[in-house]
């Protein structure tokens, strides 16, 4: 209907208001007649079907993206942080052990120390690029990176003093160790905590229930069903192929979506558990045992063994309080649901106990001033010695951590795989349901011509 010249001269707003009113009047006119109702119903149905498809596809997409982030970025970053911490603690314990050994046994330890420092430095570099320029995380990373060369410098100085036979050897080693334990490692711990928190919130995002999609899907179904029921009452015809197809498509999406989503969710949860098992349990156990080892060795080097002995007890408590009821191993135990993982945690608890016993013997010898025997028991190959016990525990924990990491990779992969194709499929089925609805109602409309 082309506007008359009079209408054209009317001011724009009045014209728009006039056209809105005319639209509403038109709709009322349509509604009063059956074909009009049908046309409106068709428009509404198509709109709802497409909207549901869009919202559902987006919800899935968002969660799939979050999962990919976990797989590619936040997951690795979190284990990066814990690796940094562990490498640094290992370096410190290794250096202290060097001082107790004879010259010819040093090369292995030196290699281990160098590998540790290298690993820590590269983990920090990786974390640095991820963290960006600003913020507390970047400050912490910068701090650790700046302190690391100071530490290695002190270690070199201590080694030089020691090989010269100078009495400054042990005190300078203590200086290095104090720097590591009280400053560097605390920053590394804060870094680790930060990354873990970030990972947790990423998991929350990835695993949240897509409420809007579900609600819209239910609404979509309801509208479809009510249209079909109304048509039944009007036309006394039960089956309308188009509308049935549309309903089937919507139901299909809903059922497929729910099934696939719950499968993915299960895998996601499992991957979270595996990750937490390391960050909160096994990883902490590794760190506590390394720091305990450092304290043990330093208690044999330093004249005032008292504070190092205290440090050893405290760290063992952190490792396994009350023989596995608490501490890091207690946490690991709470995460170990199946037989194999449970077995390795129990083995670790037993080995920790064995180490405590061995250490008791070392302390007795040390306090009785039988230093050479104490050292031999602490770093030698004696089956009943603390070196054997510590190394065994270290290996058990490393194996357990590796198992968890493999399981994490597998589960996050499976979780992503389950969602594959769902966004595209949702959009496709939404179009099918829209088309079906349009066709179905179109058929009824034809009867009015």
């Amino acid at each position: 209907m082309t506007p008359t010249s009079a209408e054209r001269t009317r001011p724009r707003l009045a014209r728009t208001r006039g056209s809105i009113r005319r639209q509403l009047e038109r709709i009322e006119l349509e509604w009063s007649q059956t074909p009009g109702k049908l046309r409106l119903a068709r428009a509404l149905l198509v709109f709802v079907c497409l909207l549901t498809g869009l919202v559902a596809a987006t919800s899935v997409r968002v969660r799939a993206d979050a999962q990919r982030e976990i797989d590619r970025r936040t997951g690795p970053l979190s284990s990066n942080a814990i690796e940094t911490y562990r490498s640094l603690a290992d370096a410190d314990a290794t250096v202290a052990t060097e001082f107790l050994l004879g010259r010819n046994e040093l090369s292995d330890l030196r290699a281990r120390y160098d590998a540790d420092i290298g690993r820590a430095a590269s983990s920090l570099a990786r974390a640095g690029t991820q963290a960006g320029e600003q913020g507390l995380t970047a400050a912490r990373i910068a701090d650790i990176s700046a302190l690391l060369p100071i530490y290695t410098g002190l270690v070199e100085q201590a080694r030089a003093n020691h090989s010269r036979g100078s009495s400054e050897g042990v005190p300078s080693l203590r200086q290095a160790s104090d720097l590591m334990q009280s400053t560097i490692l605390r920053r590394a711990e804060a870094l680790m905590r930060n990354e873990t928190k970030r990972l947790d919130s990423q998991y929350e995002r990835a695993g949240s229930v897509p409420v809007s999609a579900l609600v819209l899907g239910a609404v979509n179904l309801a509208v479809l069903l009510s249209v079909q029921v109304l048509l039944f009452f009007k036309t006394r015809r039960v089956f309308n192929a188009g509308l049935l197809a549309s309903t089937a498509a919507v139901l299909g999406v809903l059922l497929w979506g729910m099934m696939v989503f719950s499968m993915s969710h299960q895998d996601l949860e499992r991957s979270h558990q595996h990750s937490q098992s390391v960050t909160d349990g096994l990883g902490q156990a590794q760190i506590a045992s390394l720091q305990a080892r450092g304290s043990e060795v330093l208690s044999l080097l330093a004249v005032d063994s008292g504070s190092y002995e205290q440090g050893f007890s405290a760290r063992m408590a952190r490792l396994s309080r009350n023989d596995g009821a608490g501490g890091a191993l207690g946490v690991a135990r709470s995460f170990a649901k199946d037989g194999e993982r449970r077995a390795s945690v129990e083995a670790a608890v037993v080995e920790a106990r064995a180490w405590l016993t061995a250490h008791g013997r070392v302390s007795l010898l040390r306090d009785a001033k039988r230093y050479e025997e104490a050292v031999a028991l602490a770093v030698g190959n004696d089956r009943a010695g603390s070196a054997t016990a510590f190394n065994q525990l270290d290996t058990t924990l490393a194996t357990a951590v590796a198992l968890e990491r493999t399981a994490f990779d597998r589960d996050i992969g499976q979780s992503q795989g389950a969602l594959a194709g769902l966004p595209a499929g949702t959009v496709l089925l939404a179009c099918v349901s829209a088309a079906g609805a349009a066709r179905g109602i179109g058929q009824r409309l034809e009867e009015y011509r």
Partner: protein
Amino acid sequence: MSRLAAEAASAGLSGFRGCHHRFRIRMVRSFIRWAALLTASALVAMSCSGSPEHGGGAELVWAVGAIDAKPDGSAQAVADLWNNGHPNGPMVRIEALPQSADDQRQVMAIELNAGLGGLDILTLDLVWTGEFAENGWLADLTSIRGQIREVSLPAPFRSAVWGGKLWAVPYTSDVGFLYYRTDLVDKPPTTWDDLMKVGMDAGRKRGIAPFVGQGAQYEGLVVNYLEYLWAGGGDLFDRDGKEVRFDDKPALQAVEFMRNARQTGLYAPGFSDMREEDARKVFQSGNAVFMRNWPYAYKELVSQGSKVAGKFNIAPLPTFDGNGTTSALGGNNLAVSRSSDNPKAAKEFVEFVATTPGVQLLLAKQHSLGPTMASVYGDPDLAADPVMALRGRILPQAKTRPPTPEWSEISDEIQQHIFPAYNGGREQPEEAIKAIRAFLKLTVVEG
């Protein structure tokens, strides 16, 4: 739709009406029987699932640091008071944690983070409130906030609040004392400059160190530094902890005083290695004129082997302008773990400890621990005790370290900069203050 439903209903009813009345009665009776059976089974099912509080632990585990966890220690005495009053349980059992505060924090952090339910009540250093609360490890104690507020002193109470909520109850309190030699000093100085003058004179005369305190690179150094900062009217944050204050003038004055003290020999040799026990030993052997330390040292100093027994006294710490005093607040709070099996009983226990005068008096009289209940300081026995009396004088003016979750990192940062700045390291005081301020700003932004 509704027409269908109405038709169905009327069909049913007419069907019922159409029955012979005896059948009707039987139908009604069987209906009632079925309804009763269903209701009964539902009730049984509900009661079987039970409420966690009834099924929960028959004991409450209280985590305490090694020193106080001894069988004849303060914690056991408090637990006994509760256990005697609760013969039907739940009983409180002490669980010993490592000795140093840092190690205690580590052990608790690991378990609370994973939600292990092994610990119900936690003994927290008062600077951990923000961190533990922010990490979601503590149960909200808002339900008992009123009762706690009523009886506790303001500074200890404030140390238990974070984000507007109450997360712990005050348990013990500590303040810094100035110990001084009565045979060398007439009356305790009220300004730091006075202390410097008097201390250097007396020290030179006797050939002993003028002053010992906590100068090693650890939390104690931060406490000492903050006391100088507050003594000059400065602070780290504003009241709400939202904005950084740390003005140049008091911050620089504090670190420059320390630097000066080391250079002129006010601080004893070895000051930069000293913690509480080291300082006490020096003073106890008669080798210092003044000492800054916590009240715990008093008992040792008056004991048998002490060379200064009868030759020393205690006083509030000086300020820079001579007005009033200030001190860092120390001590412990008690909190309830969020993963506790029996939170209701645990909350009752902590409320009991914080609001029962008997408990606080026991801690004060038998174990020389500073109470946090205001009313207890009015007790005549306590008022007669010089240590308790001085605690009571200083407490109202004591200041808490900011209860922010980032406190341990802020403390680290302050240690890292103040230590070299006063100890002749390469850091200049101005650089140190600037670096600390920058770090404080970072924590506020991300907090």
